[in-house]
């Protein structure tokens, strides 16, 4: 049995310890907001927050997740909700499939660095692929969110 803490709730799972966190979240526990895009750490669709840092959950064996604080797109953390608001204001998603990952990566970025430069945004967000090509808007929404955060 492995104990996982996801979005503030504890879950006991009995799985192959080498199973990536992604599949435990999606297929065993049943949060489907975290997406599968490549399975090789190349696209960022599976991004979750692990103790506040963005990680590709398809590359994380579940056995290494004991005692970690995992937050998925369904979870709550200040910057995530603020970014989701900006996402809506700028009408960011097209198909939406990559957006959970995009939002988690940008949440982690703002957690670390509340005022990212253009370059910070580019390098952080280049971990995530958007096949629909929403990059312009993602960048705009991040900047908008930073502005709002700085106002309040």
């Amino acid at each position, binding site marked *: 049995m492995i104990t996982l803490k996801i979005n503030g709730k504890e879950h006991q799972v009995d*799985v*192959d310890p080498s*199973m*990536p966190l992604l*599949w435990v979240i*999606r*297929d*065993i526990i*049943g*949060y*489907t*907001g*975290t*997406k*599968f*895009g*490549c*399975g*090789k750490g*190349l*696209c960022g*669709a599976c991004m979750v927050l692990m103790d506040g840092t963005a990680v590709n959950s398809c590359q994380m064996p579940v056995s290494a997740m004991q005692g970690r604080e995992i937050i*998925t*797109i*369904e979870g709550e953390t200040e910057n995530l909700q603020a970014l*989701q608001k900006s*996402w*809506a*204001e700028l*009408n*960011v*998603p*097209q*198909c*939406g*499939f*990559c*957006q*959970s990952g995009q*939002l988690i990566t940008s949440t982690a970025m703002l957690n670390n660095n509340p005022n990212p430069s253009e370059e910070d*945004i*580019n*390098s952080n*967000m*280049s971990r*995530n*692929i*958007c*096949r*629909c*090509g*929403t*990059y*312009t*808007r*993602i*960048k705009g929404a991040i900047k908008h969110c930073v502005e709002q955060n700085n106002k309040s």
Partner: protein
Amino acid sequence: MEPIKNISRRGFIKGIGLASGGLVLASTVYSFSKFEDEAEVISEFNPNLFVQLNSDGSLILVASRSEMGQGVRTSLTSVIADEMEADWDKVTVKQATGDKKYGNQNTDGSRSVRTLFQKMRQMGATVKSVLITSAAKSWNVPESECTAENHFIVHTSGKKIGFGELVDIAKTLEVPEKVKLKSPKDFKYIGKNLPSIDVESLSNGSAVFGLDKRIPNMKFAAIKRCPVAHGTVKSFDKTEALKVKGVVDVVEVPMLRKAFGPLGGVAVIATNTWAAFKGRDALKVEWDTGANDSYNSEAYMKSITANVHKPGHVEKSIGNIESAFQSSNKSVEATYRLPHLAHSPMEVPNAVASVNGNTCEVWAPIQSPQAARREVANFLNTEEANVTINVTFLGGGFGRKAKPDFIVEATAISKAINGPVQVVWSREDDIQHSYYHTVSSQYLKGALDSKGNVTGWLHRFALPTIGSTFTPGKNLPQAWEARSAKDVPYDVPNMQIETGKADAHVRIGWLRSVINIPHGFAINVFADELAHVAGKDPLDFRLNLIGRDRIQDTKDPYKYNTAKLKHVLKTTAKNAGYGKPLPEGHAIGLAVHYSFYSHLAAAVEVSITDGSLKVHKINMAIDCGTAINKDTITAQMEGSAIFGMSLAFYGKITAKDGAIEQSNFHDYRMTRMSQAPDIHVEVIDSNEPPTGVGEPGVPIIAPAIVNAIFKATGKRYRSLPLSDHGLV
């Protein structure tokens, strides 16, 4: 024009997933099939457009088209809401299942808005008119004293009543035959930038894509397919696969040699996706690779290029091309080579199927739910009525999800294991077993007179046809695949378009903007080459090549208009600062193309530093008739620009001994944010009927980049991707 009917009391409301009790109007929207696609005969009243107004004021529209990021669930609804003066916040959309009663549901060809716009307006205006009549009746006042305003009917005296409260009276009324449509200047939602009604669920993980569908007792399956298209299983050993924790079964999936048939292989069924993947890795399969194992991309490119370097099948000939070349002052020739592409939507192909005796229910991200229904019914040898296709959100489609082979796979496995199953493709599966965008070789030759005018234009191309997927053995392009070359809107007196032979060795499919990718590339780069030889500025030269104002001579109700084409080109050049001083080392390249009945141009600014390419700015202008939602159109152009950059930079699928060599995003790369340029889009104002948006932005990007590189460096790249040339 087909009538709009009040069907509030009809029995079949339940069948379309609407609750009874509301005011339900229905109508038929013909597809554009009289002019394109297969003929479609609808003899009786077969509505495919449904609007329901409930007594609590909520307004429901059944969406017959699939949502894959193009915003169709928002654009279509907003048109109805606008004409009926509804409150946008009261609108919800219900997704239709795959059923012929909805008319054509194929969500491709950039045509949803184009074909549905007018009827949506009438539907909205009809609901409004019925509500006005209802209010006038209940107040006992003349209708002329009542108007509709933001979900209320208002009387000149100032009293008002909510739409919902009028439902009971409205249900009993016949609908008027004629209604008055709003003047475009009074539009409230059309042309305004409504955000997607799905923006929240698409940003918080709650939207259900195919991959997210879960039903009780559902298993997960991964299929090992033959590396070579249409190869078959000789034998397999499942011992090791069955040892993987979570694996419950291994079954063979048949190969069906038809357009949407499964490729076949061996499926591993497990209690979770990971176990299914691991079990598949442990499978041992021997293949009979079949005839396609001789497919080698390099040799193949040579052979189709040889076919365009000799006379081909003449598709069109005007004037006399031979004498044009003989009397020319200068002639120019060039050969362009483009590789296969895979769609690779972020969400891989997948489907949930639950077969129960001779019935089957499916949940899948599918662009063509009716084709899926037909294929599943055929496979199970049952009636279509026994098959339900539920359409989920699509995590991108780009044409891949118009082919329901993955749904037939899920059906076959569910039948074999006698229980519900979700088939999941890995990214490797997606890249190695796609319906590939065609590989192409194109030869162009142009004649210039002493003034630098183009007097002759020969365009010869060879590419495996999409027709080969439907009729194996076809090796010449179909008529529609020649159209974007034949209808090139250039004013040249002598023109000849020819096609060369090309056999298909993989499944060929349509990918966002389809044949316009190779044609748009060759035509736009060649025009730039001609300008250079003629010693002219590319913009002036191109405007001259498009020539005098004229409208295409065609039976199709939509026609190209060279004035519009010149206008989008001039607009985008101006927005890009074309001709003005640019930063050191920067240059702008142009492209202009007419496709999906829309007129588009791009101006792309690049620089090359130490041999490495950077795209700084992309300017695009689009004339797509009436813009229902400029923000969505802009988003589609932004997406097309990135999609076009990906194919220009990295897009290349190759085969060795019939097997695809690329496998995931490390060797089939995509544009990322650090490369994303500033994108500026101008949507031209127009009151003409709306035309395509989702696809036509793609084909102008790669040629504009190549033309810009030439201007910056004097180097001409005639093949893609640019990564092959070490530029990215």
